[in-house]
């Protein structure tokens, strides 16, 4: 039903309509409203026999989800920031065991220094843990991606993170169409696990694998996750048929056709970026954006298909690898191999600093006028709106 509601409430309602059987989460800002909403729905009895399990930590939350999923239940959890890091060990267990858990990550910076606001450092730090990562541009996408995530996870036996910008999306109130139960039921069949832990028919999962087969296990995990690059567009098409609106897929190009510069970004900044692009287009500036929804597996071919020789590419990143540079940029550099697309990296929006139209305009204008000599060697990492005065006093 279409209504004015908070992003977190839309996600809670949508997850409830996916009929999870176990919800287990530990509250942490800015994820809290999502699990509060779900706990209220579970407590109302509406989702029976769904169980909401209270735990003492994020490590326990994911461990319960792993146990529930291995026992054949559809399991959901949500976290952010330090909470995601606290799950780190269990994240690899969930993916290694092929358990189709869905988790919302309400993206938030990592301390120290403590900071409760948005950036992508949390999910980016865990990009290699074998989970699929989807990033929502707005709250409609955030809600819808959860429905697709359960289908995807259960079809491939791979856990999925749905990443949404903390506060910027989780606490924003806007018009959101929460999918009807009947349509969700049509799109998402009941979970049929490949195998279950059952005392009546004991099996072992996750047993020790030595050097003779460990590489092969990881090879298969990679192949399985890469299948998502074919499966996600199909599920997105089916989503459009059932729900009458497009769900996000691998990438989302915006006015890239004749652009001489394309800004690549993930998450909610794409909205502000689209507004900036429209304004610049009115001034005759040929600029576009490429949103990356599916970050893991990385949609190499879709990125190549969305860009063409001669276009400059700026990766606008809400996280970075200290001592190296952009995280998304590394994947883009591989994707763009052999193409004439000079790539630069801009780090922006760390720890909740707003990314504004004036800053984006300046960034785009400067990037278009900079020399694009690919033989010039590596460029220094650029930090948007860096406060030089503050640094001088540091």
């Amino acid at each position, binding site marked *: 039903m279409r209504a004015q509601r908070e992003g977190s409430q839309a996600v809670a309602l949508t997850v409830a309509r996916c009929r999870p059987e176990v919800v287990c989460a530990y509250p942490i800002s800015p994820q809290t409203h999502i699990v509060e909403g779900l706990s209220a729905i579970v407590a109302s009895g509406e989702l029976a026999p769904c169980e909401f399990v209270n735990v003492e930590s994020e490590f326990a939350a994911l461990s319960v989800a792993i146990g529930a999923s291995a026992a054949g239940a559809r399991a959901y959890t949500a976290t952010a920031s330090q909470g995601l890091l606290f799950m780190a060990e269990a994240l690899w267990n969930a993916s290694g065991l092929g358990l189709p858990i869905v988790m919302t990550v309400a993206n938030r910076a990592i301390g120290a220094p403590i900071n409760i606001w948005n950036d992508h450092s949390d999910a980016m730090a865990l990009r290699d843990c074998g989970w699929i990562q989807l990033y929502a541009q707005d709250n409609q996408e955030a809600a819808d991606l959860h429905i697709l995530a359960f289908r995807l996870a259960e079809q491939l036996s791979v856990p999925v993170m749905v990443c949404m910008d903390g506060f*910027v999306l989780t606490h*924003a*109130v806007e018009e959101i169409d929460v999918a009807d139960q009947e349509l969700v039921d049509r799109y998402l069949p009941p979970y049929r696990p490949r195998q279950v832990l059952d005392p009546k028919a004991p099996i072992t999962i996750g047993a020790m694998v030595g050097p003779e087969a460990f590489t092969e296990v990881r090879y298969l995990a990679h192949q399985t996750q890469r299948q998502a690059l074919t499966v996600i567009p199909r599920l997105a098409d089916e989503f459009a048929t059932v729900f009458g609106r497009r769900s996000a897929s691998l990438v989302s190009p915006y006015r890239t056709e004749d652009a001489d510069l394309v800004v690549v970004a993930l998450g909610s900044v794409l*909205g502000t970026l689209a*507004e900036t692009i429209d304004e610049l287009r009115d001034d005759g500036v040929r600029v576009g954006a490429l949103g990356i929804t599916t970050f893991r597996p990385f949609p190499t071919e879709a990125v190549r298909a969305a860009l063409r020789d001669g276009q400059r590419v700026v990766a606008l990143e809400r996280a970075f690898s200290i001592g190296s540079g952009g995280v998304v940029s590394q994947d883009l550099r591989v994707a763009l191999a052999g193409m004439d697309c000079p790539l630069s990296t801009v780090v922006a929006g760390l720890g909740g600093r707003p990314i*504004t139209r004036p800053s984006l305009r300046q960034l785009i204008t400067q990037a278009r006028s900079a020399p694009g000599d690919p033989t010039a060697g590596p460029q220094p990492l650029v930090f948007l709106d860096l406060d030089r005065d503050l640094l001088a006093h540091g």
Partner: protein
Amino acid sequence: MFQIRIHGRGGQGVVTAAELLSVAANAFGRHAQAFPSFGSERTGAPVVAFCRIDDRPIRLREPVLEPDAVIVQDSTLLRQIDVLGGLRPAGYLLVNTAATLDDLGLGGVVARLPPGHAVAVSATAIARTHVGRPVPNAALLGAFAALTELISIDSVAAAIATRFHGHLRDGNVTAARAAYEHVKGVRSGASAA
């Protein structure tokens, strides 16, 4: 696009006011987006919330930098932070106070804005009368509807009814209508003069 910034203190319902404003605008057939300033809010600490209203879906995610309207729920903030920062030349100013805008040192601002665009309303007193509590946000939404004519008072009442029930709903709706009538009276007086 019409952009609103609401200043108040933790406990005064600043975030709720922005949310209800977006619900009212949505009920009035507009697209709307509301969001808080994402601080670690504490009771009594300065709080900011934003609302955008437009005829098309809203994609912007930056804070409101140049508001078309500023609502000040607590006039003591005028001495503490730049609540008028970025207010557009043809913008609106709504201040919750029992004093006059001149008394608050806002005479210069009132003179700069178009006639009738700056209004003082005793929203806390109205809330005490009708709700029995000094929470001025619902009354200010009624005043905002009269000041800007961007949303109807009925859509404000409908928005309040989505959030409050029983006597709190009735009291807040009555407070909103009382503030609406007050500001309408002030504005018709201003345009007659």
